[in-house]
């Protein structure tokens, strides 16, 4: 007989709650669950009488989740993008963005380490000119990695630092300019405007939203605002080494529709892991 609202309502609700328990934002779990239910009904899907609808529903949901976290154009090949820019004689500009404490500075250092291993040259822009110890923190990473950090006075203009680093890259033929920015709440209009200025004036090639895998429903509000008001080209979710199922990754992917570049899996320079979509689906809906 055909699947209908009555036969699917409770089973889909169970799966939505399972996704929520596995850290997916309520809005995202509900949207994906309701959409799958609707599609099964509209497709006139049939099933033997008295057969349990749950396995079929689960499989359809897993497929839907996989689609959300697999971007339509395929991923981004960062190394290829950097090479293309180098051929045009321009440095590749990356700006890290996100709310306070998600791991932007540490992630930037990890990425820089990857670029160096691939043979690219990097310069850091210490555009977090606000937070106590921010310039120190980035400079110390720079020293450890052998990367120059362009910095101004604390309290200086973040955009000026980024432009200074860009000039330095042109002068010295540096392949990648990496701009570290201060954490900011997405509902702080002044700080969002400040970040937009950095992105616009440097004509950033890659705006990376850095999100915390431990975050709950707020992560979609963060991702949405940064994507709408500043722009996001790709995502890195950090702290995936902590005991998380990874629902937050799905929430962000669903909200911004951009590729998940990497997962941060620790505090060391090598702790950046390629994102595995199948693994995440198994975590969220085993």
């Amino acid at each position, binding site marked *: 007989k055909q699947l209908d609202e009555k036969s699917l309502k409770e089973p889909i609700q169970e799966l939505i709650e399972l996704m929520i*328990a596995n850290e997916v934002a309520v809005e995202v779990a509900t949207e994906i669950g309701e959409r799958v239910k609707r599609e099964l009904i509209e497709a006139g899907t049939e099933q033997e009488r008295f057969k349990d609808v749950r396995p079929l529903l689960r499989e359809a949901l897993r497929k839907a989740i996989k689609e959300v976290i697999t971007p339509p154009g395929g991923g981004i090949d960062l190394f290829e993008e950097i090479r293309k820019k180098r051929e045009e004689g321009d440095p590749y500009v990356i700006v890290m963005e996100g709310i306070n*404490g998600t791991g932007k500075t540490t992630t930037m250092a990890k990425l820089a380490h990857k670029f160096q291993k691939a043979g690219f040259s990097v310069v850091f822009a210490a555009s977090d000119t606000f937070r*106590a110890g921010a310039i*120190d923190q980035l400079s*110390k990473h720079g020293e450890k990695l052998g990367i120059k950090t362009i910095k101004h006075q604390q309290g200086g203009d973040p955009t000026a630092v980024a432009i200074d680093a860009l000039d330095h890259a042109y002068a010295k033929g540096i392949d990648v300019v990496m701009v570290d920015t201060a954490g900011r709440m997405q509902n702080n209009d002044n700080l969002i405007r400040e970040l937009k200025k950095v992105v616009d004036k440097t004509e950033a090639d890659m705006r990376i939203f850095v999100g*915390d895998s431990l975050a*709950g*429903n707020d992560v979609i509000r963060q991702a949405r605002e940064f994507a709408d008001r500043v722009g996001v080209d790709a995502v890195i979710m950090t*702290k995936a080494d902590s005991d998380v199922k990874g629902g*937050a990754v799905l929430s962000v992917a669903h909200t911004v529709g951009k590729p998940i570049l990497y997962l941060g899996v620790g505090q060391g320079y090598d702790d950046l892991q390629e994102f595995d979509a199948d693994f995440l689906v198994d975590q969220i809906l085993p």
Partner: protein
Amino acid sequence: SLGKSLNSAITKVLRRGPVDADLIRELKNDIFKALLEADVEINVASEVVNRVEQRSLSEKLPPGLERNKAVINIVYEELTKIMGDRAYPLNIQKGKTNIIMVVGIQGSGKTTTIGKLANFLKKQKWNVGLVCTDTWRPGAYEQLLQLGTNAGVDVFGDPKQKNAIKLATKGVKEFKKSGKDVIIVDTAGRHKEETELIKEMKKLDKKLHPDEIILVIDGTLGQVAKKQALEFKKATDIGSIIVTKLDGTAKGGGAISASVSTGAPIKFIGTGEGLDDFEPFDPKKFVGRILG
């Protein structure tokens, strides 16, 4: 906002006439969804709505629109009940050297919060000293030094020393000598999977015998808050919680879940990056934030 969705849920259900079990169940599901959206842990949320359902069915509710208010009040009461109904002070006493140890997950806001707490206590005439024992994060000492200096308190640290325990004992010793009556010890961020770091935290606890261990929790923390907090509680006797980043849009349900499950009361909240963005916890105000 949660408040809007909660209010409309209650209005829609109760406008439909006499209260019956089906209506209350529908309301219960809407409240459950609203609490989950506020990041309240799923089991904590279902306990709360079960009690709301029970009370709404067994208590004599007033007629008409007053019924709305009565149910909202029950939700409000059940939430404040799990938050603790009053503000608890820090476990520090004048006339002795008090040691406060601050722990929490990476990036939750420990170092920034310590600056704020130092500023708060100094204004209350405590003689405060800060000790940096974070040997992992580049620039950790410089960060605490700047915050402490802004708050007008002394800061002890030694970026060359890689042993957190040695830093803690040396810092406490020096500050005891110089007559501090509150010493706040900053620690490196850690989560429960990092067994070596959890071990280090236990060792610090044993060495310092803190009068209070504060768990700093990021206001954006989601469903994992409860199990993370329980692990911290298992390792060290968490006395209280400070919730940060509530100037953003997070509702703080994770912190509530952490407090409920560990029994550690929330004592302060962080509402920004500045030294004064710091308030003693007010359970009624917090529930008001969750309910919009």
